[in-house]
């Protein structure tokens, strides 16, 4: 992969991952000017849900980069991983902001009450907090400062965050809905691939020894 091609690819990925955000901006500009939007009768709820769905999907996508790299033998895919991860963090932050701002009208006491009382909010909030150090250490300088070993150990937190994200969805949805199961299934496949791949590597190493 040449440098300039990678740069184009990054630009393309940036645009693709921005699309949900741009779509939402467009819908709210329609609402603001009194036109009919695609957000339905309850745009605040629709926005929260849309941002939640997008967050979880982009987070799962960031966890899919490594398995895809290994499966397709495309080592350069790693170079796209940081952007996907940061977009996941961006959407999760917006999700939190839309809930805190539009649902709770920026009431800190209401937020603390919700975190303490409602399981799905507790789980989602922990998942978000765990991602903060990851976003802060996402730069090359931070990677160098921490050293690759410590850095990658720290970034394993994303697994816990993803599990919490799926659990947050399970506890939020009423009844036994298919949506959480679907995302759980994707997470399971991503974890299963990692276990399989590292086992294969270990066996290969042992044989060589």
């Amino acid at each position: 992969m040449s440098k300039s091609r990678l740069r184009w690819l990054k630009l393309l990925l940036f645009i693709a991952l921005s699309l949900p955000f741009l779509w939402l901006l467009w819908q709210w500009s329609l609402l603001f000017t009194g036109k009919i939007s695609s957000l339905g009768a309850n745009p605040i709820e629709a926005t929260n849900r849309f941002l939640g769905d997008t967050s979880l999907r982009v987070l799962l996508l960031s966890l899919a980069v490594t398995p895809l790299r290994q499966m397709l033998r495309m080592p350069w895919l790693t170079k796209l991983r940081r952007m996907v991860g940061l977009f996941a963090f961006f959407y999760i932050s917006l999700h939190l902001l839309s809930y805190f701002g539009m649902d709770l009208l920026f009431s800190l006491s209401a937020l603390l009450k919700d975190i303490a009382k409602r399981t799905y909010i507790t789980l989602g909030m922990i998942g978000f907090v765990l991602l903060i150090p990851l976003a802060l250490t996402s730069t090359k300088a931070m990677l160098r400062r921490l050293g690759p070993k410590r850095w990658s150990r720290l970034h394993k937190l994303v697994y816990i965050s993803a599990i919490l994200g799926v659990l947050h969805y399970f506890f939020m949805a009423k009844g036994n809905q298919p949506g959480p199961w679907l995302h759980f299934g994707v997470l399971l496949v991503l974890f299963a691939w990692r276990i399989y791949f590292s086992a294969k590597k270990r066996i290969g190493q042992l044989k060589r020894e």
Partner: protein
Amino acid sequence: MIRIAKPWQLKESQTTPERLYLNRRHIIGGLGLAASLVGGSALAKSKPQSTRETLAFKKSDYTIADPLTPENLVTSYNNFYEFGTDKSDPAKYAHSLVTDPWTITVEGEAAKTGKLAIEDLIRQDELEERVYRLRCVEGWSMVIPWVGVPLRKILARLEPNSNARYVQFVTKFNKSQMRGTRWPVLDWPYVEGLRMDEAMNDLTFLATGLYGRELPNQNGAPLRLVVPWKYGFKSIKSIVKIRFLKKQPATSWEKSAPKEYGFYSNVNPNVDHPRWSQASERVIGGGSFSSLFNRRETEVFNGYGDAVAELYRGMDLKRNY
């Protein structure tokens, strides 16, 4: 007979003249048309309004002063998990439900058990309109003009005996017509129930229409319950079975999550749902941009306490949620 006006009832002078009312419908109809012209809008996917037959009905004293929720919102945003778990799914997928012919099976502790065609259960000349607030357990509310008959009238016709202490309702369950039932979101078919005195209360209503026309499928055609002092999920849709029982029946949401949903499910701002505060509710469909953020304080029994608080005298409403 002397009718004592209840506090929520409007005086004749306060009601909107029919001419203006019809006019308002025109405007709302126009909005629906506008919505259907904008492609891709969730609002545009409901069944065309023209296919719903107009109903003849009397106005009743049961109304509230708040502005009506626009018809296109009532018919495009609701929960009917038999058609999917998103609130835009019913409007998208309920057209596959076959509502004609429609038979209702009556079972249990009553004299008139057996199968009945809907036409034999509800006569077209006894319809009345009632404007009720509908409060969803998810924390939003609408003001809807229902057309139908008080449930007590219909139940009396079925002649329940003295053993009948509860009445259970069952929704139609058909995997090919109701795509949401292919996945076990709930233990299908959907079941709901009322204590007999709740069912016989004058507020409890069986609706066959809204906004002056037949119910659209997504709102529970051809026959649904409306119990305005309880959370919306108690108002069971597309009813195919009525059962008179000695014992309190299980209800779908109670079976799904007994700690979250009880048999009574009366609207109560002082009893929180584990997932949502019930203190206030978002008012759907204010019209302006700022109204998107409108909330109102939720009232005990959804504001119908004068008519129904008596039913629960001496009961701990925190325990009997």
